[in-house]
């Protein structure tokens, strides 16, 4: 683990950010989650190579990083579409028609849960409660923005907008 890192996945500015993050904790292992977030932010998903890299930076074995990546649901273990649609289907959203939204997108784009359209634009996923129960039904896009109070009549429009926004 003390081996020199030869192939850097972060540039110099990012490595300074890594140092800033690691300085917040008494132990380097604590950097595992934040550094994985940085990887996902940059590359869109977390590859075996990047898990090894994070392990080297945090001075923990690759196995530890793999354990973390597979435990937390927000880390993408394979590439996803440009527009990653995560639709909450938990109770409050279900009561407000989340399944209809999911089925509509699923049928229209011919993709099932966790699948990506052949053109690599949309990935659809059923997820658990996102803490947006008062504005149900809702979905999260690309692990970031919340789209709340979804309307079945306006969902196609919204998807088109998102495609334009994230295709470039």
């Amino acid at each position, binding site marked *: 683990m003390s081996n020199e890192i030869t192939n850097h996945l972060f540039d110099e500015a990012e490595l300074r950010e890594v140092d800033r993050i690691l300085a917040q904790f*008494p132990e380097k292992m604590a950097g595992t989650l934040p550094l994985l977030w940085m990887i996902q932010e940059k590359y869109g998903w977390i590859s075996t190579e990047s898990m090894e890299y994070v392990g080297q930076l945090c001075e923990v074995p690759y196995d530890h990083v793999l354990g973390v990546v597979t435990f*937390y649901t927000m880390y993408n273990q394979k590439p996803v579409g440009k527009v990653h649609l995560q639709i909450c289907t938990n109770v409050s959203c279900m009561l407000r028609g989340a399944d209809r939204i999911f089925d509509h997108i699923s049928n229209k784009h011919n993709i099932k849960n966790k699948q990506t359209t052949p053109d690599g634009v949309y990935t659809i996923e059923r997820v658990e409660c996102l803490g947006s129960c008062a504005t149900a039904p809702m979905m999260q896009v690309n692990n970031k923005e919340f789209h709340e109070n979804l309307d079945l009549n306006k969902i196609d429009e919204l998807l088109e907008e998102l495609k334009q926004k994230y295709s470039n």
Partner: protein
Amino acid sequence: MVKVILKDIPDLDKLDVYVNNGGFTALKKSVTEMSPDDVIEVVKKSNLRGRGGACFPTGLKWSFMPKGNEQPKFLCCNGDESEPGSFKDREIFEKNPLQFIEGSLIAAYAIGAKAVYVYIRGEYWKWINIMNEAIRECYVKGYLGDNIMGTGFNCDMYLYKGAGAYICGEESAMMNSLEGKRGYPRIKPPFPAQKGVWGYPTTINNIETLACVPEIINKGAEWFAGIGNPKHPGTLLYGVSGHVNKPGVYELPSGTPLMTIINDYAGGVLNGKKIKMVIPGGTSMPPLTAAECENINMDNESLKEIGSAIGTGGIIVMDEDTDLVQVLTRITHFYYHESCGQCTPCREGCGWMLRVLERIEAGLGRQSDLDLLVSVAKNIEGNTICALGEAAAWPVKFTITKFLDDFKAAIPADESALPEMNKVHALRKSPQYEVLNNNKEQEIVEGLIGKVREDVKEKRSAM
């Protein structure tokens, strides 16, 4: 109407507006005029109880922290908020983040922590950005870091972004997550105040709990203790969702009647329908029937009396047309998905309950399934490291027992129409089984075992 956290002041999330409205005076007062023990004493007197679900007295929790500065001590703020039906902390991050920051600094002073970690669930991207900005501004203006407000008090605050795991809302799982590990709950004892994050004394408080603290210091313990139900005082952030006209977060005194919240604040049930079931505090809390809703006050003591609890104050309302089998299946799917997998009863039990419920939902249930579900739930409850076991078991146990007719109706009356799944099932429907059953099978089986023993003896003696 008294408001402690979500005050009706525009732009209160801006630092200058917050300071102009008396912001950070409580911190200054605590640090300059009071000793840490004084602060703990005031919070104890105010009878502030944790808002994360367990309602543990906050002052008492702080007093468990060891005195002295031989070792580092930490404060962790729990903003994981993943219980379905809960969405109150994000309201605090959005509307009044600085009061939370001030409250956590007062807590850090009281327990002697030099660093505060704010753990926020990864899905709250927008609110994480808000908090990052608020923390950055506080550093720039001297409300965080070294020599805060010229008082000589030092404290750092770091934001930690979760990555999607309900279990990290459990305090010991959160500590593991903060250490960069999988979110596995730890066995207690040792309690966090003895051996917490990185092995050092740690206090973990909910965001809402900490946001109450500045007002308690400013207006006094008696003022706070006088709001709402004296046994569980203060205001609570009730999050109402489901079949209501105006879902949202409403800050009201504890002990506000449930029907007042639903009808006067949340705009009543959608389309004027009747209530079938209400979950009072996030999906893990035992649900209430329509009759129980009528006269119940929303505070922990009142709910405890009828066998439920306030939890996180996330109220989910379901109207008379709701399919409870579907609801319970969905809830169970959540706990099945979120079980960390350490304890067998929870890991396996949640899967069993889910599969049986899915069978019932598909119209292939058996009358015996309902007893089976309750029996599995009872065997999870109390047999796990953390409370996720109870969280998964209670909805199943209580929804089925309280709404038995709904579940019975979902099961076909003519069970013989079902395919016989396996040998055991087939045997139970066969005449041989009836014979065994009627003729005291126990004796027959014991008789057979006795015969085998005799045979073995005979063979041995012949050798």
